[in-house]
């Protein structure tokens, strides 16, 4: 399949014109809506706590609240900053707002955005990629809303009637997903795929870095390697 056929979804407009459309019609609105809905959500997230405190008069004493917060912050803290920066280039602007408002990034948003762009035949990081990725992640939010509501109502009953083998098979869902997405991107650049694993396996095995730094080191390390190889014209046409 030729490159033109593979990227059948790309618009014929010149890049400068596309960027102009994005910078006047797209990004300003996305950033405005993204900021407003995120700040509203930052309040909504505390509604269960506020409800318990105001209506039922229950709020943990501050020493317990602080202790609990430190417990979660020490685990999640690094990811608050690392994840938005690491994943932005793939999620795009709209995708980043949705992902950090409604979660499930590596297990759903990244694969959905990537598959939508692959099927639609657009290039990652292009204006078309931004729009297609956004549409894909919007769709994933609708499916998530329906499924989580269904799960909240029925999950215990449904899981009870599942044969044990089927239930157990869900333990392998994420490993299978990691394989699928690695295959998709490995096809795009097999050499970089081999390099990434060749660096990552010893890195993780040796436990030389704290676990929360492994993803950012791999993400930025691979970006630098890609830039160097490209600039030097190694393996890729400049």
């Amino acid at each position: 399949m030729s490159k033109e056929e593979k990227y059948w979804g790309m618009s014929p407009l010149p890049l400068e014109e596309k960027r102009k459309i994005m910078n006047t019609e797209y990004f300003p609105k996305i950033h405005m809506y993204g900021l407003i809905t995120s700040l509203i959500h930052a309040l909504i997230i505390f509604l269960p706590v506020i409800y318990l405190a105001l209506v039922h008069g229950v709020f943990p004493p501050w020493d317990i609240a602080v202790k609990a917060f430190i417990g979660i912050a020490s685990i999640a803290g690094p990811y608050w900053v690392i994840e938005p920066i690491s994943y932005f280039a793939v999620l795009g602007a709209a995708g980043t707002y949705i992902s950090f408002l409604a979660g499930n990034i590596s297990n759903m948003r990244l694969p959905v955005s990537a598959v939508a762009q692959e099927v639609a035949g657009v290039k990652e990081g292009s204006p078309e990629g931004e729009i297609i990725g956004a549409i894909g992640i919007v769709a994933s939010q609708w499916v998530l809303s329906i499924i989580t509501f269904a799960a909240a109502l029925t999950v215990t009953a449904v899981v009870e009637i599942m044969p044990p083998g089927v239930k157990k098979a869900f333990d392998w869902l994420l490993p299978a997903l990691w394989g699928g997405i690695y295959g998709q991107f490995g096809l795009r650049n097999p050499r970089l795929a081999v390099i990434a694993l060749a660096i990552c396996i010893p890195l993780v095995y040796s436990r030389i870095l704290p676990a929360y730094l492994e993803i950012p080191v791999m993400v930025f390390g691979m970006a630098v390697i890609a830039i160097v190889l490209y600039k030097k014209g190694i393996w890729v046409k400049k």
Partner: protein
Amino acid sequence: MPEEWLVIAMSWAMWLIGFITMGNALIQSILFLRVARRAGAKLGLKPEVLRRALHAAFITSFGPCLGIFVGMVPLVIALGGAVAFIRESAGVGSIMFELIAARSGAEAAGVPLTREGMTLLGLATILWTMAAGSVEWVIIGGVFTRWLPALRDKMGGGDPELISLISVAIMLGAFSRLFTTDNIMPAIRLARFAPLTAGITGLVVAVSWIKLADRLRKPWLKEYFMLLAIVLGMAVAQLLFGG
């Protein structure tokens, strides 16, 4: 008679909060879809492209959502459906995060994370921990995302080929770490081969399916590759090593 904390956790007010949480995320997604559609039309994207992307996204999200469905079991069992709905429809955290937050909150309040022994104070502490531990993502994502496009363009120097290559490299970087930690390390450290089998099956299925779709010149076939990779990966791992 169920205990007081459970009555409150399952009250209509908590379900209402769930709908408000989900609703805000839905409003955001609808606003974004409108902006994306309009900009897409101005860019000259074919309606066919948008339709295929939407279709592919629905099919692809289905697999991970089923995983989330099953993953919600411990959360529903421990704290009831309403709390699980509030947190999973649009509460930022993955199941893993929610369980860690719930554990951290329960521990600080000195209660076990089970229905027996849970108290109203325990529930309040858990809800506080879940909210206080995840709001940072919403604020950081909401406030700082506007500066990130410039960062990406700077990395790629405005060259679309290079920006595309960097995006591919970033995905390989992130997923090589997940593949290594979840698939390869259990095999090396614990001689557990099911995750690696699932991963390799998923990889082979994805690669073969994409190549087949390209060879047949039927790009729409790709809509199914991730769902197939997940289902076959799970099935092969379970049949060979599930026990």
